[in-house]
């Protein structure tokens, strides 16, 4: 079903699903925990009753509502991170500033609070030995239950650790390889999430155990003094460390589940309308491809292009149709325009980054008028009669104007000297370190957007391949040379990435995201070109391509692939 709505509707719908599922799954986990905690195999009826009683008691809900509210707040604030354009920090200073932004500080606080409250909630709804922070002892006085104190404190620590270690580092959405039903994705991911949570939460628990061992007594005494609590005689047993691990794992699981939901709902493919029904108002596939303001929409649009090119002859047909009235291929034109824009901008960004010495093309002083030879559109119906004589070529032979050059004077020398001193000073004082551009920041930025190129290049190549059978008017052919040329240029720029030392396997190892993405983008562009060459195999010589491009296709794509 094609949806006609604005970006905001689309994103809000996806995000609201994610937030709601997060909150509800928290509720479910709690229920499940109570159910497990009350396990009583010999009296199943009592087991059920107790579970039911706990879950319906007012005290549980009084505890639960604030917790769910905090989870909700956390989800809503996190949601922003997923949809809003992430600005790439090119200097260390920027990175430093961004780490201490208000947004991050609020999130950090929320993570810490959620960590503590979830531990507290789980402890208090189960009738274990740690269900209360304080308890009556030695007559009338209140004592501190150190086990409970230890666990709640660990909740704070886990929240803090998780935020610093995991949340700050990974915020990009991972699109699944195949798009199955959401329930199936949940089912297949649940096991790995649990395993990963148990695995990853080991170290923070270990660190906390260590920290508490060192400063635990001090913290406990501060707390006791503040609330005038007494010491309890019985100390928690070593079993408490397993509780510690369990609650850290539970926290990790909750957070990972939340991230999973965001991933699940945001990466779900959307069908964008191909035809612009109401002018300018609704979102179309073509415009969304270059919508840099909402990266997730842009990603979804490219994904949709990829999927429709492969699966939907009906939707493909919209690109090969002519407008009525007028007979113009508006849909196709806007698609090509946007895809080419995406590809060329990507190529430019890459070229800017790689900083390889480029061949300098000296432009002639007066450019000759470009004359379109009859060859350029040989495949289109030829309106004019072909007559070689009607093209009169103008010979332009003007000598270059005389250039006056001054000898470098003293001033220039001084300024150069000053500049080098200034550069040296910047290096010495650490200005370069803080404000200088980070190496390969742009490459990283490029590669983070690699999916866009992967999908759009494959999408456009599949549409071109399908056009041989489906394109009745030969609309695609007029743009074939320019599409091939820009893909080849992109491929050439990508090839240069191999020379960037920070992206070689020796430097980063196989697990590096950038290294892998480089391979994926290169392979996708190569496959796209191969696909076009293969489907236009017999007509490849008829496409007016420049000699360089043609040679590149022959040598690098068809032969070498």
């Amino acid at each position: 079903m094609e949806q006609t709505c604005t970006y905001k509707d689309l994103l809000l719908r996806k995000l609201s699903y994610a937030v709601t599922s997060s909150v509800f799954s928290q509720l479910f986990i709690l229920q499940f925990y109570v159910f497990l905690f009350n396990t009583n195999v010999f009296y199943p009826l009592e087991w059920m009753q107790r579970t039911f009683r706990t879950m319906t008691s007012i005290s549980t809900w009084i505890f639960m509502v604030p917790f769910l509210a905090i989870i909700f707040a956390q989800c809503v604030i996190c949601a922003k991170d997923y949809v809003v354009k992430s600005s790439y920090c090119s200097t260390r200073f920027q990175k430093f500033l961004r780490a201490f932004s208000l947004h991050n500080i609020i999130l950090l606080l929320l993570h810490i609070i959620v960590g503590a409250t979830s531990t507290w909630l789980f402890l208090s709804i189960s009738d274990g030995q740690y269900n209360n922070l304080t308890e009556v002892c030695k007559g009338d006085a209140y004592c501190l239950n150190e086990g409970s104190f230890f666990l709640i404190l660990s909740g704070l620590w886990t929240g803090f650790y998780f935020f610093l270690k995991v949340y700050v580092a990974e915020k990009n959405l991972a699109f699944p390889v195949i798009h199955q039903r959401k329930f199936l994705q949940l089912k297949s991911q649940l096991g790995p999430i649990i395993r990963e949570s148990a695995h990853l939460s080991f170290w923070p628990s270990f660190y906390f155990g260590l920290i508490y061992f060192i400063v635990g007594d001090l913290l406990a005494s501060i707390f006791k003094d503040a609330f005038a609590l007494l010491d309890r005689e019985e100390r928690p047993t070593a079993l408490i460390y397993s509780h510690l691990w369990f609650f850290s794992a539970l926290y990790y699981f909750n957070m990972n589940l939340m991230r999973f939901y965001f991933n699940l709902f945001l990466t779900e493919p959307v069908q964008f309308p191909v035809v612009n029904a109401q002018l300018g108002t609704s979102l179309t596939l073509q415009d969304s491809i270059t919508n840099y303001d909402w990266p997730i929409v842009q990603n979804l649009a490219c994904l949709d292009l990829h999927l429709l090119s492969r699966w939907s002859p009906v939707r493909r047909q919209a690109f090969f149709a002519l407008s009525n009235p007028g007979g113009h291929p508006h849909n196709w034109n806007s698609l090509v325009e946007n895809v080419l824009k995406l590809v060329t901008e990507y190529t430019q960004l890459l070229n800017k980054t790689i900083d390889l010495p480029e061949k300098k093309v000296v432009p002639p002083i007066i450019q000759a008028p470009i004359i379109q030879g009859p060859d350029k559109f040989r495949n289109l119906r030829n309106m004019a009669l072909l007559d070689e004589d009607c093209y009169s070529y103008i010979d332009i032979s003007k000598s270059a104007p005389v250039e006056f050059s001054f000898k470098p004077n003293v001033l220039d020398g001084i300024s150069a000297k000053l500049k080098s001193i200034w550069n040296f000073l910047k290096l010495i004082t650490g200005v370069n370190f803080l404000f200088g551009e980070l190496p390969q920041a742009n490459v990283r930025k490029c590669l983070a957007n690699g999916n866009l190129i992967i999908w759009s290049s494959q999408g456009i190549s599949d549409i071109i391949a399908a056009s041989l059978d489906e394109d009745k008017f030969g609309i695609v052919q007029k743009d074939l040379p320019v599409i091939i040329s820009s893909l080849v240029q992109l491929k050439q720029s990508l090839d240069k990435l191999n020379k960037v030392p920070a992206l070689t396997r020796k430097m980063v190892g196989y697990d590096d995201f950038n290294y892998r993405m480089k391979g994926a983008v290169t392979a996708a562009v190569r496959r796209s070109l191969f696909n076009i060459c293969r489907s236009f195999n017999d007509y490849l010589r008829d496409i007016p391509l420049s000699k360089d491009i043609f040679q590149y296709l022959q040598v690098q794509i068809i032969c070498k692939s």
Partner: protein
Amino acid sequence: MRNLQDFDAPSNGEISVCELNGKAHSTAIGFANLSSFTSCIESHPQVHITRDQLYSTTSSDEGKALFLPVDVSFLKQLTQVYYEQGTIEALYLAKSHKQALVSHIANGLLTAIRYIEKVRLIMNPNVRYSGPALICKLGTTRDWQNSTIRSIAWHPYGRKLAVVTCDDSVRIFCSESSYSPLLRCKQQRNITCAAWRPMSATEIAVGHENGIIVWSIDANSLVSRPSVSNAIILHRLEHKPVMSIAWSPKGDMLISAAACDSAILVWNPELDRTSSLKRPGGCGHVLVKWSPTGDKIFTCSDGLVFRVWDHRTWECDRWTVASGRVQSACWANCGHTVLFATSTDPVIYGLIVKRDVIFASDVESSSIEAIPLFDVSKTDLFDLTVGGLVQSMEADPAGNHLAVVFQDTSAVTVFTIARQSALQLIPSSIVTGLAEEKPTAITFQQDLKSGACLTVGWSSGRIQYYPIIYSDLAKQPAKISMFGSIIN
């Protein structure tokens, strides 16, 4: 149901060499000269891998038997064992040491390791892979463990042939080029299958015991052993041994089945990301086949269940066999039909796959039954025994011909697939090898315009081409294609 009696066996002392316009031709063994019948496969690489061409596999301990044991100091012995066989063996050695303290510590460590392994097995039952015997039992290659040729794969566009041999390597043969690269590395052990990547001239995925390696062979370079550092190594702990792999027709996804993993993995090879297809039934999978049109995928488990997946929605249609498991299967009829045979029943079945229908429920699909098409029970044709339980079967890319290898008999039967009114298998010819030769792997060439070319790997290491040529197709003017000329 028709049976193998309808076949005409080649007369005594003769072997079938080709099929021209529906007529099988055979000549005497000594005079087998294909070029007198057709010139279509003249440029195909001639492959005969003899035992002395094979590399020795490092895993065997044969060399050890040649040396007499000598007394070396315990520490030296321990170091040697640690380097050659790893930590566990070293611990076993330490356990047998005379000194009580050392043996006690080693024993304690071994017990701990055993318990950890047990816990791991409970957490993750897929880790229980026993060894190559399982591959031998479940695979489609006949006598996998002992045969020189384990698998053959034709390139989808060019005339390149990849031959998997029992020395854990893959040899690439090209027509018109004597240069044959060898793909071999230490991670690549017990290869089960290989598949060329579509939309690429140089990449090939090799499925082995522990995972998949996607090699890239640069046609412009003359390095005979491509380096594994340019290859992509795909590996998941619980996904082994990889039994079967298949590329999506556009070459962007790779799907793999493993005998000890209940999930089928769909890979994005470059990003090393997977999605898993998991449904109840069976604890491992042995076969995946992508339909030639690309919209359906056939998978079968090591139990009763087999499935047909829709590539677009990744929903599946569940089928069960009465007993045993699906031994081999292939797509025919432009992806409309699956032909399969089970491991207990000498019958070839056909299954018509619904198209353009959203798979609603299991109940609905199971109302249609697979049609038994051909009875392949063991039969004597003069002095030649053919038939029996099916080992493997392959159909040509156009879906007109079917070749079948049997578990006990050494003749390959070729059928023509007819689909006028109903699906039918028409006996066509019998391909036999030389004396004592058994077929181990079969495949069809992917891009032969003038018909089909069955390629049989025999147990002797010889590869035979059996062209099935239609002269009216062959006569069509060959377009001067830049593509074809360069790629070959």
